[in-house]
């Protein structure tokens, strides 16, 4: 019989990298802590027995080098922006500047405790206050809250502001409208805010069907949630009429900022008639995605909604000798209250601040111009090989349909998996729901022409494979660390933790 220390644990044909638990060896340790420099009181005296853990938690026991190798090897299994192109529609996977990482890891920012008195954190309060101002300018809004931790969190917060606004006027509105092309967080957030969701149809040009909207809007409408450009990459050119229709019944217009990257310096949601906006700083302002988060979704409002903003709020005043002073206040009688602990995802907000200061007004505008230009260029390179359901120019993203390839026995899913073999992350697939076998492509402005052309060439090659050797596409991926995974098994027999 062998003990665990005799076990040969490592990679094998069926296991790329064992888990930390399998690599563990009893008694092994790598950590470094100073000895206890205060008198050691017996634990029994400090904590009653019934409140103490009977057995030590089953954490792994590894050496430092084991830890380093394990996570280094795992990191190498990841595709990332630093490694390659992500043409993901509505995700805005632009380059994450290293300068931001340097700034955020500076301990003068990273070691600030959120319970420190305001007087000791004037620097961070000033930075956050200025960032609020910059976002107001970019969005054409009157005030911003930096608290929501993600886009969905921002949506929920924004809808709660709208609800508080109507309730203050004694109105109880029950419905939120969203287009059938909306991102799933829109209806989910509306329900979280206590509303029923009603879908508005898209017309043949891929935009909101204004007649359908007119029919659906009424005194029960709290808000219409829109993204502009929409999830098809098309600008809602009738936005002013749409805003009018909603406002006339007393409803509010909500802007989902997922596609802000198309319009910085071009158009501002505040000028389009939006009352509430949320921005996704992990998209437009390039805070890193981190494998799924953290993100941050600040919410901007027009002045009529300012009183309802969540607490705490930063107030600026002029102190002695004319110096600007900042303080956090919770004295806001009409506020919806807190939506999270502390002030916000400050580590990310600092990166967004650095980005906006690095780009300046001309840089941000050029970024949006280049994002639109690159998307149209890529579309031009691809529209012979795939169906493009919407003619004409797109904004910063566009959709293609894999309908032609479906007829040849190749689904968009197969095309996506084959792109992995060519070394690319696929575009967004099967969203929005209004396009059959949908691919949504957003190159962003940080990719050069050679990358765009190489990506287009890969997709064109796959389209040819679909016509001539569909089985090759269907068998993809073959060149990745693992190939297609049995997702049915993962969902039928969920295994969500290591059990030994």
């Amino acid at each position: 019989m062998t003990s665990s220390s005799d076990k040969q644990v490592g990679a094998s044909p069926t296991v790329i990298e064992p888990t930390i638990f399998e690599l563990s060896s009893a008694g092994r340790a790598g950590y470094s802590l100073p000895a206890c420099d205060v008198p050691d009181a017996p634990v029994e005296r400090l904590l009653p027995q019934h409140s103490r853990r009977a057995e030590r938690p089953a954490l792994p026991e590894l050496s430092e080098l084991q830890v380093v190798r394990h996570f280094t090897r795992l990191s190498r299994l990841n595709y990332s922006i630093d490694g390659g192109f992500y043409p993901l529609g509505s995700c805005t996977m632009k380059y994450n500047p290293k300068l931001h990482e340097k700034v955020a890891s500076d301990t003068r920012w990273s070691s600030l405790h959120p319970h420190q008195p305001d007087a000791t954190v004037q620097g961070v309060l000033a930075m956050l206050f200025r960032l609020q101002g910059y976002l107001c300018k970019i969005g054409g809004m009157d005030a911003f809250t930096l608290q929501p931790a993600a886009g969905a969190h921002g949506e929920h917060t924004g809808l709660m502001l709208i609800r508080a606004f109507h309730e203050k006027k004694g109105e109880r509105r029950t419905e939120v409208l969203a287009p059938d092309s909306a991102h799933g967080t829109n209806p989910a957030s509306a329900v979280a805010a206590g509303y029923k969701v009603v879908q508005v149809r898209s017309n043949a040009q891929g935009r909101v069907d204004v007649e359908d909207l007119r029919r659906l809007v009424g005194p029960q409408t709290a808000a219409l949630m829109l993204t502009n450009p929409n999830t098809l990459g098309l600008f809602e050119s009738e936005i002013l009429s749409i805003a009018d229709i909603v406002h006339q019944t007393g409803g509010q217009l909500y802007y989902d900022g997922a596609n802000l990257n198309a319009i910085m310096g071009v158009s501002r949601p505040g000028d389009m008639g939006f009352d509430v906006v949320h921005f996704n700083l992990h998209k437009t302002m390039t805070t890193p995605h981190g494998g799924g988060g953290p993100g941050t979704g600040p919410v901007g409002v027009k002045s009529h909604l300012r009183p309802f903003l969540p607490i705490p709020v930063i107030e600026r005043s002029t102190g002695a000798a004319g110096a600007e002073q900042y303080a956090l206040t919770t004295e806001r009688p009409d506020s919806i209250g807190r939506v999270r602990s502390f002030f916000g995802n400050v580590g990310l907000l600092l990166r967004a601040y650095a980005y906006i200061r690095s780009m300046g007004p001309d840089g941000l505008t050029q970024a949006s111009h280049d994002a639109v230009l690159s998307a149209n260029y890529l579309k031009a390179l691809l529209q012979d090989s795939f169906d493009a359901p919407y003619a004409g120019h797109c904004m910063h993203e566009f959709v293609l349909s894999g309908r032609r390839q479906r007829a040849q026995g190749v689904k968009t899913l197969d095309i996506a998996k084959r792109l992995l073999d060519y070394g690319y992350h696929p575009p967004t697939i099967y969203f929005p729901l209004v396009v059959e076998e949908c691919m949504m492509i957003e190159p962003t402005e940080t990719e050069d022409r050679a990358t765009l052309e190489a990506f287009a060439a890969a997709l064109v090659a796959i389209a040819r494979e679909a016509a001539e050797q569909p089985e090759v596409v269907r068998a993809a991926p073959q060149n990745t660390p693992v190939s297609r995974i049995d997702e049915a098994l993962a969902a039928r027999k969920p295994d969500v933790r290591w059990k030994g």
Partner: protein
Amino acid sequence: MPYLPHTAADREAMLTTIGASDMEELLDQVPTAVRSKPLLLPAALSEPELLHELDALAERNTRSAGPRSFLGGGAYNHHIPAVVSALASRSEFVTSYTPYQPEISQGTLQVIYEWQSLICALTGLDVANASLYDAATACAEAAMIGVNATNRSTVVAASTLNPMYLEVLRTYCWSQGLQLRVVMAEGGCISPSSLRATLADLGEEKPAVAILQSPNYFGLIEDQASLAQITHEFGALYVTCANPLSLAILAPPGEIGADIAVGDAQPFGVALSYGGPYVGYVAARESLLRRLPGRIVGASVDNKGRKAYVLTLQAREQHIRREKATSNICSNHALCATVATIYLSYMGKAGLLEVAHLCLQKAHYAAERIAELPGYGLAFEAPFFHEFVVKTPRPGAVIREALMERGILAGIPVDGQAGLTYGLLVCVTEQNRKEDIDALVQGLGECAA
């Protein structure tokens, strides 16, 4: 301009291929009426200029959490090992997207699977998700699990929850049309009789869930086994909000009868960063797996029989269920969960226990010495982990001010809370050396009058 690779020649060539004469043509979908004037932002700064500006701003932060900081209250100052920062800052973790294409995301997926496993090991529960934003929103998500599981609409929460968590619960309950009832503490803790009375008083308005924090906001350990039992008698789910570091030595939620555990894993290597990003966790009994919000990683195999990890049970989430999703949450705090996973792997079974032990011993040493000072005393008698409330002879806010002048962040004022006149919530971790604690004690003594 930074990060924009296109040259004028590139732009011209692309326009030609597209068949447009200029950029304006591409933007013609945008009506003139909504075209904006140039953005009113300050001009761009080069890299050296930006660093100078941020230096100037950083200089206006006059203190930070170091050895002389005794601040806790939901954010904890712990040593972040060099290994943790080095590994978590690898760009393959930082700049990767959500692992929706699992074949090229096994790094992130396996790290999150390990995170889920570690959270289950610490909480003594069966299943966990891929992380949430923070402890406050995790409490709100736990409330929703209870509401959906029991089909009831009243949430009961302890007055000894961190006040921010209670406020977030209040906001979310209003948002979802739920009732929030608060059970009041006596002597800094929730007594079984108090909980029973609160639940009984609800009458027909049956409770869906009772949420307690232990160690609670005042640092005290609640009598959870009794509280969980009483909660179950009323047919509600029992939720523990727990600092996961405390679970290295305290009885885990799974063993004292909790159905759900939530909290913030920020103590595991996540920088203080003035309040965020941190990392919420949620763990639960097996039967609640399909009610968990957000992302979950599962283990499976690929079509060549290799072990592979994948986002699973996605049909619960917003991108599929839309308005019927378990939650509206989309993102998780993956990178922070990665930091915590690396920290726990590095500290390991012995290391985590030792950190907790150091916090426990140093906090009790501090409490004992402070209690000896004339005019001061421990506010409560119940056992505590590494935070405790000190009764102060003058307002806690005043004492705090005075000690700041000595370079000490003495604690969080809790004047007027939990039946106290004046008090300070003091936290001690392995970062506070004996000399720092002695300086705190001396400072408090000298500022008593």
